[in-house]
């Protein structure tokens, strides 16, 4: 896209959204060249920030008329490079941040895509309700972004991921057509298009409003910390808890590297720094009977070799225990300028062996892996802090990560549990999916976006999208 055309496009978009809400100068665009995952930099050709639903639809229709590709973006907290725009238009939706309705009786809410995850729960709090999916970035990330990524979070172990909480989406397709997917008013016959849209990483269109399920607050919550002198013992304890049949609200693990990073930061949570691993376990539910479940889990921890067990005595202590976990990635920022985070998932019985394997791989490549992850789901987040200006270190880090991903796939796992494929994991897709499966994903994308203008180049490697003869791919054809 040449400069002359770009400024003309900028003028046209400014006519829709107002000149303040269209950025074109490189210095202004700097903040939009990265998302939550350091290591990738892509500069958009321009950035546009519609403030209303009508403006958003008008922008998308204008881009469709001009044939211009675009990347939808919420708060830019994603961890897969999915919200990066490489010399195409960045469509920022964070100004659309109204909670449109809270239906207390039916426990649902209708929100605009730019509503921040935690602020929805705050809005629902007076009614004893909350929005259950709670990514660690929940203080900043948006519901629109959560829908695009099918975001998870610690409490998804018990309550389910974003998909399980989305009832309906009003979406603008990349050609500007506005459609409703799913239904908040009863169950419709036909394909589960809302289910397909959730997790489509901005490739199928832009959510204009989302109807989500709200969850009743539990009567009581117990949060405990168990610390172990070996990573293996902690991992085996996780498997034992899962098999027990009590579903904790959350079951998180942090290893020694993470514990030390957290304790050295402003997010210090009082984790024992000489532990090889800690489990942060939360149980919630009815007040009566909860302490017996806590005792059963505690007994498993002790039997598994836990050195100490600490149950948060009040809300302050509970919040502090969680703060260390939720801000762990932030704490890593103190160690090095760059951080690579992976998001592989393994069957939960394979956790002990895969953690040992991750340790071996790190040692072989001379890198230092920290583990902080959703152990109850088998969702690993191995991360490596490194100096991005050191080419040798960078190469070793990425070689180690590739090997870790291969090991997780070989254990029957997946390459991403909640962060999405984006740009970062494109190379791993063919480890998990056959050519025919990748081709099916391309066919699905083409139904929503035959021109492949929405978030181009993400999720499915382009070479997988072969043409198939005799099939009109475009919607409405035939």
């Amino acid at each position, binding site marked *: 896209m040449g400069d002359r055309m770009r400024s003309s496009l900028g003028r046209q978009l400014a006519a829709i959204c107002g000149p303040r809400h269209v950025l074109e100068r490189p210095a202004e665009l700097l903040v939009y060249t990265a998302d939550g995952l350091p290591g990738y930099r892509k500069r958009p050709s321009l950035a546009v920030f519609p403030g209303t639903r009508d403006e958003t639809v008008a922008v998308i229709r204008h881009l469709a008329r001009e044939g211009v590709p675009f990347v939808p973006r919420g708060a830019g907290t994603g961890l897969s490079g999915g919200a990066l725009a490489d010399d195409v238009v960045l469509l920022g939706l964070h100004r659309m941040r109204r909670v449109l309705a809270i*239906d207390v*009786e039916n426990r649902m809410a209708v929100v605009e895509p730019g509503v921040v995850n935690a602020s929805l729960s705050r809005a629902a709090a007076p009614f004893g309700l909350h929005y259950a999916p709670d990514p660690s970035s929940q203080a900043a990330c948006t519901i629109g972004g959560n829908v695009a990524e099918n975001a*998870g979070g610690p409490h998804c172990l018990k309550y389910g991921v974003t*998909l399980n909480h989305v009832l309906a989406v009003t979406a603008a397709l990349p050609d500007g057509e506005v*459609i409703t997917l799913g239904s908040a*008013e*009863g*169950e*419709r*016959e*036909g*394909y*589960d*298009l809302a*289910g397909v849209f*959730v997790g489509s990483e901005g490739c199928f269109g832009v959510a204009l409003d989302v109807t989500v399920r709200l969850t*009743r607050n539990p009567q009581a919550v117990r949060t405990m910390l168990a610390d172990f002198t070996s990573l293996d013992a902690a991992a085996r304890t996780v*498997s034992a808890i*899962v*098999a*027990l*049949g*009590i579903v904790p609200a959350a079951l998180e693990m942090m290893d020694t590297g993470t514990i030390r990073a957290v304790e050295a930061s402003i997010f210090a949570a009082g984790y024992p720094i000489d532990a090889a691993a800690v489990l942060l376990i939360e149980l919630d*539910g*009815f007040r*009566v*009977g*909860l302490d017996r*479940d806590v005792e059963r889990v505690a007994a498993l921890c002790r039997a598994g070799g836990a050195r100490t067990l600490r149950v948060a005595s009040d809300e302050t202590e509970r919040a502090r225990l969680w703060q260390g976990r939720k801000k762990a990635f932030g704490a890593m920022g103190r160690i090095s300028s760059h951080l690579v985070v992976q998001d592989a*998932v393994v*069957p*939960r*019985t394979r956790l002990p062996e895969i953690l040992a394997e991750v340790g071996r791989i790190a040692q072989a490549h001379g890198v230092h892996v920290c583990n902080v992850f959703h152990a109850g*789901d*088998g*969702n690993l987040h191995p991360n490596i802090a490194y100096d991005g200006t050191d080419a040798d270190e960078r190469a070793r880090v990425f070689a180690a990560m590739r090997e870790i991903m291969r090991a997780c796939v070989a254990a*029957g796992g*997946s390459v*991403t*549990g*909640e962060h999405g494929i984006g740009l970062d*994991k494109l190379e791993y897709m063919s480890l*998990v*999916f*056959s050519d*025919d*499966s990748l081709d*099916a*994903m391309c*066919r*699905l*994308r083409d*139904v*929503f976006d035959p021109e492949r203008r929405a978030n181009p180049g993400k*999720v499915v490697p382009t070479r997988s999208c072969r043409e*198939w003869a005799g099939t*009109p*791919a475009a919607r*409405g*054809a035939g």
Partner: protein
Amino acid sequence: MTTPEAVTLPEVPRLVATRGADVQDAVRDAHARREPLRIAGAGTWLHAGRPVAADTTLDLSRLSGIVEYVPGDLTLTARAGTSLAEIDDTVRANGQWLPLDAFGTTAGTLGATLATASAGPLAASIGLPRDVALGIAFVTGDGRLVRGGGRVVKNVAGFDLVRLAVGAWGTLGIIVEATVRLRARPETDRTLAMALPADRTALTTCLRRVREAEAAPVAAELVGASLAPRLGLDEGADWLLVRLAGNSEAVGAQEEALARGRHVHEVAPDVWQRLRATDPAEGLVVRLSQRPGELARLWTAAQRLEAAGGARHATLERGVVRAWVPMPDEDVIAAFLAELGAADARIFERLPPAWWPRLAPAPADPLARALRRAFDPAAVLNRGILGASEEQAG
């Protein structure tokens, strides 16, 4: 049209698949010849009255068996033709269960349950097929084997082919294998029954109080008076069955909360199997749904079908009323439909075949038609099963 016609299965050639490759061969051949296939699992849905236009039936009932089961992972992978009963028997030994409890027989297969997204009382809490399915393998209408999802409990790799296949009635691909999430059997699993008021206003209040009570039932199902005797309940009233599961103290506390100001009594846990087994083999079955707060209104509307020799039950937190009449009468159905609001969702699960053209779903939207074309270009898979509109797909 006042009586249903006798339903007879068309005598058509059957292809029996025992391996996934058989399905691929059959579909490739059908695709090449442009000759549609009817897809059948245990065959329990063949009477649903959906007029599939096919000269050949592809029988998946022998494409069965459990492929992988690791109890500690609480996941199980099975071929499509495996019956729900077989899965349940297998996992029960490890104190686990598969929370798919669609109405009808447990001879139904995993593949068909997912393909039709059939759900039962547990769907309101843990048993909606789209949420239970973790991974899926299916054969597209041009004979390609496609896999989506995987064997882990959390997975966002790639576009969601699992949700695409679940509920598509086989029209985007024939499910040949699936991985599902299991649950550990709860320590305590008790079911309470309470009689419901007949008056709609009183019922609205009653249901609201139950929903607001300090309880989180795994199932809460209304059953009409006509079903009551088959469930061991008094037929003088409609009933609410509430299933509480978890640790015994927590179940006890919920029981107390529900019993406050109401008379409840415990019923044997097999009431749920008995309820599933009441499903009719013929006639008309309709599913109405709205926001859960509207349930009393839909429930009252369905009373007309119960009075015409039928039955009704409803899933509270899901806002779904299911009603049926074995011998539907045109005037009764017309009056029943006239009572519904335009926004009330209605799905006919089963119809006398001759009624299908009139009550078939509204024409598919362009997106749905494009999906069909993309995944089954020659419309050979269960052609007609989603209504007359999708014939255009061919």
